[in-house]
């Protein structure tokens, strides 16, 4: 009954293959050299006079899941399910050409995870079932489920928020201490890092801020000009445009662009440094994160942001002038002559101040989330997203605070 145990040289690509396999040409490429797995169930076998299941072909995962023969596995599973009494059935696996652990597991599960009383199989397939028998049933314990509407989930959410607030306050405190150290010994400060960060966050952002500023200026001027023209108030375009761009839109536009550009890159950079253990390496070498990573970024953004604000203001006003001369026929010369009268200088200083504050906030928020990234790719993506969203929200909140604090200034 048992097939010969010796492996034949013609087991081309398989492993425990080849009881009845005919030797293929040895130069044949090793594709599709297995027979499809089959399973047949007879209620009353002619010879043994009892229920018999005969398995044949290759019971390897590649044959079971062969895309060329769809439905193979479903058919076999259905047959396995239809066997009424596993223990009173004779299982004949001696015609199985090749087996692997997935094929063995399929049968094993059908047998209720134990060896059936009547089983015939070739000796070289014995090891698979012996290992399954030795291993026993492995249980995967259910992961604890957290539903968002439970009280504990709500408390955890509150706790996380509190944790974030605490972390952010700690970060600001650390920054103040680092700034103190920097002012005491400015010659030993991280000048190179500051300069590199100004280059990355400031100089490299000139193009995009110019483009966006110019286009917003054109749109704003065009829309306002149409409305003003109806009331015959063409000359007030300078007031509207100058005031809104210099006091409000310029700083906000620049901040949102920088939050998207530099905020995300800072978070991702710190996150990858966590993943690659560079942050730990810095600590080991005695390079504190606050002084060498966070402070330079905050200082750099606090310097480059107001400069970008001026640049964005200029570009937006230029766009506004172009649209105004096209729509209302206001000359450039008139526009520039009227601007100082229409917009008091204090608005310009408020805009610059906003730039400094927004820049520092963006850097702080980005660093805060960057340092909290866990060493896996999903956390990196989520951390970067939440960093940018939070930075933009914080900038808009800060803008509202500015509006309230300076409500009597500059009109």
């Amino acid at each position: 009954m048992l097939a010969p145990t010796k492996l034949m040289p013609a087991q081309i690509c398989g492993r425990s293959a080849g009881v009845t396999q005919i030797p293929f040409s040895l130069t044949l490429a090793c594709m599709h050299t297995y027979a499809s797995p089959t399973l047949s169930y007879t209620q009353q076998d002619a010879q043994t006079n009892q229920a018999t299941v005969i398995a044949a072909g290759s019971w390897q995962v590649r044959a079971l899941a062969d895309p060329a023969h769809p439905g193979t596995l479903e058919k076999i599973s259905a047959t396995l399910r239809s066997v009424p009494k596993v223990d009173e059935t004779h299982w004949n696996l001696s015609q199985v050409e090749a087996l692997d652990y997935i094929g063995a597991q399929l049968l094993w599960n059908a047998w209720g995870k134990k060896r059936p009383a009547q089983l015939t199989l070739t000796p070289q397939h014995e090891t698979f079932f012996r290992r399954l028998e030795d291993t026993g049933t492995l249980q995967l314990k259910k992961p604890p489920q957290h539903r968002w509407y439970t009280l504990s989930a709500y408390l955890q959410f509150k706790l996380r928020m509190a944790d974030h607030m605490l972390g952010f306050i700690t970060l600001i405190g650390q920054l103040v201490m680092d700034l103190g150290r920097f002012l005491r010994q400015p010659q030993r400060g991280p000048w190179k890092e500051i300069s590199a960060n100004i280059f990355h966050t400031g100089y490299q952002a000139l193009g995009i801020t110019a483009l966006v500023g110019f286009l917003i200026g054109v749109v704003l001027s065009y829309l306002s000009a149409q409305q003003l023209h109806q009331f015959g108030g063409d000359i007030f375009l300078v007031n509207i445009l100058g005031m809104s761009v210099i006091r409000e839109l310029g700083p906000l536009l620049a901040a949102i662009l920088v939050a998207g550009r530099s905020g995300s890159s800072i978070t991702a950079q710190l996150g990858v440094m966590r993943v690659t253990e560079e942050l730990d390496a810095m600590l080991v070498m005695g390079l504190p994160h606050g002084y060498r990573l966070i402070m330079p970024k905050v200082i750099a953004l606090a310097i480059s942001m107001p400069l970008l604000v001026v640049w964005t203001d200029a570009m937006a006003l230029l766009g506004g002038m172009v649209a105004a001369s096209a729509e209302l026929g206001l000359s450039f010369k008139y526009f520039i002559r009227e601007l100082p009268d229409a917009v008091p200088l204090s608005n310009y200083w408020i805009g610059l101040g906003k730039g400094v504050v927004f820049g520092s906030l963006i850097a702080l928020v980005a660093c805060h989330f960057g340092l909290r990234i866990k060493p896996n790719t999903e956390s990196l993506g989520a951390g970067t997203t939440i960093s940018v969203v939070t930075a933009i929200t914080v900038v808009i909140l800060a803008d509202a605070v500015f509006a309230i604090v300076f409500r009597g200034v500059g009109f």
Partner: protein
Amino acid sequence: MLPDIDHSMTACTDEHADNPQTIIEIDHLSTRFGEVVVHENLSLKINQGEIVSLVGGSGSGKTVLLRQMLGLNQPASGSVRVFGEDINRIDAEHLQQLRNRWGMLFQQGALFSALTVFDNVAQPMRELRVLPKQLIRDAALLKLQMAGIGPEHALKMPADLSGGMIKRVALARALALEPELLFLDEPTAGLDPNASESFVNLIRELRDELHLTVVMVTHDLDTLFALSSRVAVLADKHIIAYCRPDKVVEFKHPFIETFFRGERGQRAFEALPEKPGQN
């Protein structure tokens, strides 16, 4: 016993008497990165059921060669045939079928950091889209168990694992689809001696059970002597020697002398209970 046939180009290319199936065939392969020539006219043949170790100095292009066998890097010239198919000229559908027949253990594990240990191993099985959930669960847990990871660790994230456990999980993932061919890049680097020993035993067991063909890059002489049926030495931009470990050490070449006949090499070789390749 295997008869030795000495070729003039490569020292002692052992050939089996009964002409076994060739799994990997690299033919006159050259690799260049810009100006730097890594491989020149490199040829190598790996037969079914062998465990071939690839050794060479740092920067000699071992990992690049491994990546070329997997189709991750393209050679400048020459061909790489795996299972009889030129993997650089094959269509995407066939390549996918080939990819289900080999497994790779990366040096750092390369586990998907966003997935649990269990999901990492189950991923390739789910990708087939036909296996039932229950079967995948049992098969993945069995693979983990075989690699020495109990089900209590199955729901951990890769970031929470030690270096040795990452290697084991990565091996379980490489074995998930019952490959016929297994690539190992520094399988025992960073493992403690005990873990290395059990790793070696596991690979040997799997080779016997699943009739695996194994190609590994290793610097660990203990592993090399314990496992290899043949050793391919990569130096001077090609394979300078390709024979059984006990023959390789006798070969005259400055690299081999420093690599194998240093104090460590001698110790590892002496410590073997039986000389490899003789059974």
